[in-house]
């Protein structure tokens, strides 16, 4: 077991303890909902019992435990919380405001480090984006850095959407790298440059791993920062997924060869032409995080972009999840359900779309034993929707994270309340609606 895996386990342990302490002795029974467990069949009149932060029971005709808080979910939809597989949540408050955006080194400034950057160092659990998106049913998210001038962006963390001080669930969950046109732009404006560079990075990282003392003492070209090479260790040993921004089908075929040669774990982000190499991706066991609303030849690498990308990849047996590329969608992770609905309209089976919002993300980051479905023993991230979660006019009524019912109030709700009445009033608007 590698050191990083050890650390991950420790972290999950801590998160579990936190959940236990806050959710201790809390028992909730959600009764008579349309329960989408994701991994099993839909239960029409289903019940979900939550105890001590975990899902205790799921089924039909269950009995609410004595002392449990009972929620009548009849006419409602119960499903796991949305797990956003990539975002800049907690790193980016205001996109264009340098002071309020820690998502990555600003491009053009030549900042020397890349893979070593770590989302947990900047993650701000007090971001107003968190409660706003939590109210949209998002309970977990990957908080990932954005690349500056170099290929690698750094290490992503998995967080829960409680906004609490202990809300980082899994640091070092993945490394992020830009390939395709985004990589070429950072490598002499040619794809040859980006492949040569990424190979060199990994070769150096391996060389360092083989004999760290010797590597440090040895005279070498000072091409890469040592801290970047150290950060790449879990990538080269195949334990940490490498999230690769890439779109073009031919680039993806190169990525498959590269992955096999270096024995990496890879997750594709973007993948606008991934459907063209669906069988190859399936064989290589590479999942794809995509935007199912993207259908334009925006760049030459996107000529094959189509609304049917999700449906075709699913058909080919490729695991998919969704993202909203607008700033990785940190502001509107709550719209992932709309993205999923559009994928369904373009042919993706409904249950596959729900899986793409939940269990698939969990599996991409090895958290399927903890998250992503309604099964006994899993962390109780549960959302009760007032209708079809993929529809445009539905909303979550109740959100549980770690078994704890969440406050759905947020800054946007407060602003709305403040300005619903535009009359002059007894006092200015600044005295209203802030509660």
């Amino acid at each position, binding site marked *: 077991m590698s050191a990083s895996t050890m650390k991950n386990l420790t972290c999950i342990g801590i998160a579990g303890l936190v959940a236990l302490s806050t959710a201790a002795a809390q028992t909730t029974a959600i009764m008579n909902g349309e329960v989408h467990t994701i991994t099993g069949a839909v239960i029409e009149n289903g019940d979900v019992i939550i105890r001590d932060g975990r899902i205790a029971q799921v089924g039909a005709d269950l009995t609410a435990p004595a002392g449990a808080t009972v929620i009548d979910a009849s006419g409602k939809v119960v499903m796991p919380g949305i797990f956003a597989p990539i975002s800049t949540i907690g790193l980016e408050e205001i996109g264009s405001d340098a002071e309020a955006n820690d998502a990555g080194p600003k491009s053009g400034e030549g900042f020397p480090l890349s893979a070593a950057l770590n989302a947990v160092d900047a993650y701000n659990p007090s971001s107003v984006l968190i409660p706003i998106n939590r109210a949209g049913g998002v309970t977990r998210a990957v908080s990932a850095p954005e690349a500056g001038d170099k290929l690698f962006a750094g290490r992503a963390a998995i967080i829960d959407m409680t906004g609490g001080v202990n809300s980082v669930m899994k640091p070092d969950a993945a490394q992020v790298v830009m390939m395709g046109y985004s990589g070429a732009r950072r490598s002499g404006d040619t794809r040859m440059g980006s492949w040569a560079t990424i190979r060199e990075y990994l070769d150096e990282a391996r060389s360092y791993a083989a004999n760290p003392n010797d590597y440090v003492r040895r005279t070498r070209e000072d091409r890469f920062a040592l801290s970047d090479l150290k950060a790449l260790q879990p990538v080269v040993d195949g334990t940490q997924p490498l999230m690769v921004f890439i779109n073009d089908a031919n680039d993806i075929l190169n990525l498959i060869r590269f992955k096999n040669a270096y024995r990496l774990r890879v997750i594709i982000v973007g993948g606008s032409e991934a459907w063209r190499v669906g069988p190859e991706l399936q064989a290589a066991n590479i999942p794809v995080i995509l935007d199912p609303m993207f259908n334009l030849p925006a760049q030459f690498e996107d000529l094959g972009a189509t609304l049917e990308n999700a449906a075709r990849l699913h058909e080919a047996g490729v695991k998919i999840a969704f993202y909203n590329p607008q700033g990785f969608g940190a502001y509107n992770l709550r719209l992932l359900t709309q993205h999923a609905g559009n994928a369904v309209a373009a042919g993706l089976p409904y249950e596959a779309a729900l899986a793409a919002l939940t269990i698939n993300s969990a599996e991409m980051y090895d958290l399927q034993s903890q998250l992503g479905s309604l099964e006994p023993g899993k962390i109780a991230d549960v959302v009760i929707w007032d209708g079809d979660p993929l529809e*445009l006019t539905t909303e979550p009524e109740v959100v549980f994270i770690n078994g704890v019912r969440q406050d759905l109030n947020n800054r946007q709700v407060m602003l709305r309340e403040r300005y619903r009445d535009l009359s002059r009033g007894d006092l200015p608007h600044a005295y209203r609606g802030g509660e």
Partner: protein
Amino acid sequence: MKKLGTMALAALILGACSQQGGDESAADDAASAPAADAKSADGDGGVVQPPLDPYPSTYEPYAAGAVLITGATVLTGTGERIDDGAILLQDGKIAAVGAAGAVIAPEGITTIDAQGKWVTPGVVDIHSHLGDYPSPSTDSTSDGNEVTSPNTAHVWAEHSVWPQDAGFTRALAAGVTSLQVLPGSANLFGGRSVILKNVPSRTVQGMKFPDAAYGLKMACGENPKRVYGDRGGPGTRMGNFAGYRAAWIEAAAYRKKWDDYATKYEKWAASDDDEEKEKDAPEAPGRDLKLETLAGALAGDIKINMHCYRADEMVQVIDMSREFGYKVSTFHHAIEAYKVADYLAENGICAAMWADWWGFKLEAYDTVRENAALVHAQPDSCAIIHSDSDIGIQRLNQEAAKAMGSGRRIGIDVTPKDAIVWITANPAKAMGIDDQTGTLESGKMADVVIWNGNPFSVYARAEQVFIDGALLYDRDDPSRSPRMDFEIGQLENDYTGGAGQ
């Protein structure tokens, strides 16, 4: 006299008159003034007018047989919903709309059984950059923002529109039948917009909405000061306002110069005094493209599209419009419209909004999902949902649905028959084309969408799109699905691109 002069200038600045029409009206003036006739015979061409419409629309509707669409849920765009409704399209126009039994169609015409389907006016996007920021997006094609000076009122968006932008086809497949293409927002004055019918053409002229007035793009707040802060200014919001005001003062003077010239010319042409007639005709002022556009905006012939996020800035702009005697048509990206929805309604200004985009800059931090519904809830309001995006334009119906749903949750009475207005009639009104499109009413252009279900559902898709009665998109018929030149023959011919891609 003065007044007539103003009207003449108004006519010449209004893009609505064709070149030919302008000449005819000049001839009419001459005919009513015999003295001027004599002058004309001596080689005087009449009062000098800048070309009224130098790049005129050549759009012609495509052939369209009569079509009866019956059995559908019809949202008229006038705030009405007709269950089991029918609509008759004839000669490119809407001939009748009503209950299925009440619309009488001629024998033997094409009838579409639209039971279970919904019919709406063609979608109108008031804020697009299609053609100016086309796909593919490269340095070569990036033509949407003349970031060279804070005042580029002299540039015209149509001169950047690449009619081969695949985005037009995707928007068509989403039911968009008319759109306004605006210059970008880097500048205080970004330039003229162009209003297009979403019908593919070899030329932008072939897409131009016939007789539509021009728009002028202006921008508040962060963008101009960010772009010009270290390039000579403006570097602050007060600098922005100083820049607008200086330009309006100059434009008013320019307008007066042309008005004075027209007055002087008419006096000279109508003069019976021999001595006066011997003099040369008064000389026309020199043209200035920038001021021509601004003077047209002051005259009310060019509609002002003001990119403005913050509530306090919108109200300052309203004051500025009073100072210089012009009217703002629409605040675009009006993130904080809900904070001043009363001001907007009282001043008859539309707010064009996103359903839920926010946060990408500080002036976009304060949105609420009920923004459009709160604007809508004011009496005599004008709420618009816009896209500003080649992806967003493909689901304006979904954006309206989200905004509608959020409004309903806080008790605002808004249903599909109302929310459809946000993406049809209201943008058409703000763009000045509402007498021709934007609603399903007899006599209007037959710009009509058949949806395969309630367009306020995420699962609904535009199935057939008619523009001026011609079926230009059919989800089930590849021969009715346009493909742009750029997309043809790509990817070893495997891939065909096209509207429904």
